[in-house]
C-alpha cells in the first residue's frame, strides 16, 4: 500500500510539472484532470472519503468541465476570427 501511495505521489508531481510544460492546452487540461483523479485516490488512501468524493465531483468533474468550456469558447472565437479574415 505504501509503495502504491508513493507511486501515486510521484505521478502527481509528474502531472504537475507536465502541466507547466505542455504546449497544447487541451493536453494540459486532460493532464490536470488526471492530476485531480490521482489526488482523489490519495485521499482515499488517507482515509478521507469525504474529500475524495468531493474532489472527484468538484475538482475532476466541474472544474475540468469549466476548463474544457473555456477552451472551446476560445477556439470558437478564434475560428470566427479566421472566418472573418478569410471573408475580408
Amino acid at each position, binding site marked *: 500500500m505504501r509503495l502504491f501511495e508513493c507511486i501515486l505521489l510521484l505521478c502527481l508531481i509528474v502531472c504537475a510539472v507536465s502541466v507547466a510544460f505542455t504546449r497544447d492546452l487541451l493536453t494540459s487540461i486532460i493532464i490536470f484532470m488526471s492530476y485531480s483523479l490521482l489526488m482523489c485516490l490519495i485521499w482515499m488512501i488517507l482515509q478521507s*472519503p*469525504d474529500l475524495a468524493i468531493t474532489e472527484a465531483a468538484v475538482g475532476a*468533474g*466541474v472544474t475540468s468541465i*469549466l476548463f474544457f*468550456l*473555456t477552451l472551446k*469558447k476560445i477556439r470558437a472565437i478564434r475560428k*470566427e476570427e479566421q472566418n472573418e479574415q478569410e471573408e475580408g
Partner: protein
Amino acid sequence: MSRRRDNYETSRWLRFKKWVDGETDPLSSGMDAIPVVTEGQMRERRKNLALRKAYDEELTRLSAEHADKTEIMKARGIRNFQKFYKVMSVILCLAIISVLLWTIAALPVTGGADNPANNEVAARYIEKGLQETGAVNIVTGMILDYRAFDTFGESCVLFIASCCVLVLLRLDADSKNDNIKKMIAESDDRHFEPKDDIILQKCACVLVPVIMIFGIYIVLNGHLSPGGGFSGGAVLGSGLILYLNAYGYKKMSRLFTEKVYRRTTLCALTFYCLAKSYSFFTGANHLESGIPTGTPGAILSSGLILPLNICVGLVVACTMYAFYTLFRKGGM
C-alpha cells in the same frame, strides 16, 4: 592646457549655477504634464509586440528549417530574456520548495497518534459528536454544527462567485446596446457541434436518472455516509449539464430557467442563513435550541444538518449548472 568644453550650455556646473541663481527649478519641470508615452514610444512598443509574435512563429519554423542568420540575431535578444525568465522561475520554485522542505523536516511525522494536531478538539468531536450533533459522519457534523460559521461563509463564497460570473458573462437579450446583441449572436456556439446526436441522447436517457439519484442519495445521506451537500450538489449539477448537452436548451428551459435558478438559490440561502442565525443566537445566549437530534443513524436525524445539506446541495447544483450555461452562451 585643459580640454575645451564646447557643451557648456548643458554642463552640470551651469545647471547648478542656474539653480543657485534661482533661474531654474528642478521641481517645477514636471508641471506641464504631458502623456508619458509619446507616439514614438508607442510605435516602438507595438513593434516589439509584433516582433515577439513574429518570434513565436519564427521559432516553430526555425525548428524545421534553417533560416538566415539576421532573423536569428533579431530574435536572440528576446530569447535571452525569455531564457532568463525561465531560469528565474525555476530558481523561485526551488527556493520556495526548499524553504518549505526545511520546515517539513522539523514538523511531526505523518500518521503519529501523538501529533499536536490530534488533541482534545478532535477527541471531543469523535467522542461526543454523535450525541451533540446526531450525525454519524463526524466530518459532516463538524462542518455543519461545530464550525458552521465557516461553512456558511463558504456558501457565500460560492454565491458571490456566481454573482461575479453573472456580471461577466450574462448577456441580456433585452439590452439596447448593439454590441451586446452582436455578442449574443456570436456566443451561441451551438452550431459548432452536432445537433440531436442520437447516441448521446440514448446514453443520457439511461445515465441522467442514475446520476440524479446518486446525487440525491449523497445529499440526503450526508450525515450518515461520506459526502454531503457539496459533493452531492456537484453530482446533481453534472447530471443537469449532461441532460442539457443531450437535449439542448429548449427542452431544458421547460425545466430550468434563470428565474428558477434565482429563486432556488435565494430560498436555499435564506433558509440556511435563518436556520444558522437561529442556532448561533440560541447558542451564544445559552438558550435551548429545541431542535431534536433524533436517533443516530436514521435518515431523519441530526437536527438541522439534513435540511442544511439539502439547501447546500440545491445551491451547489444550481450554481454549477449556471456556471456551465453562462460559459456556454451567456444566459440560461
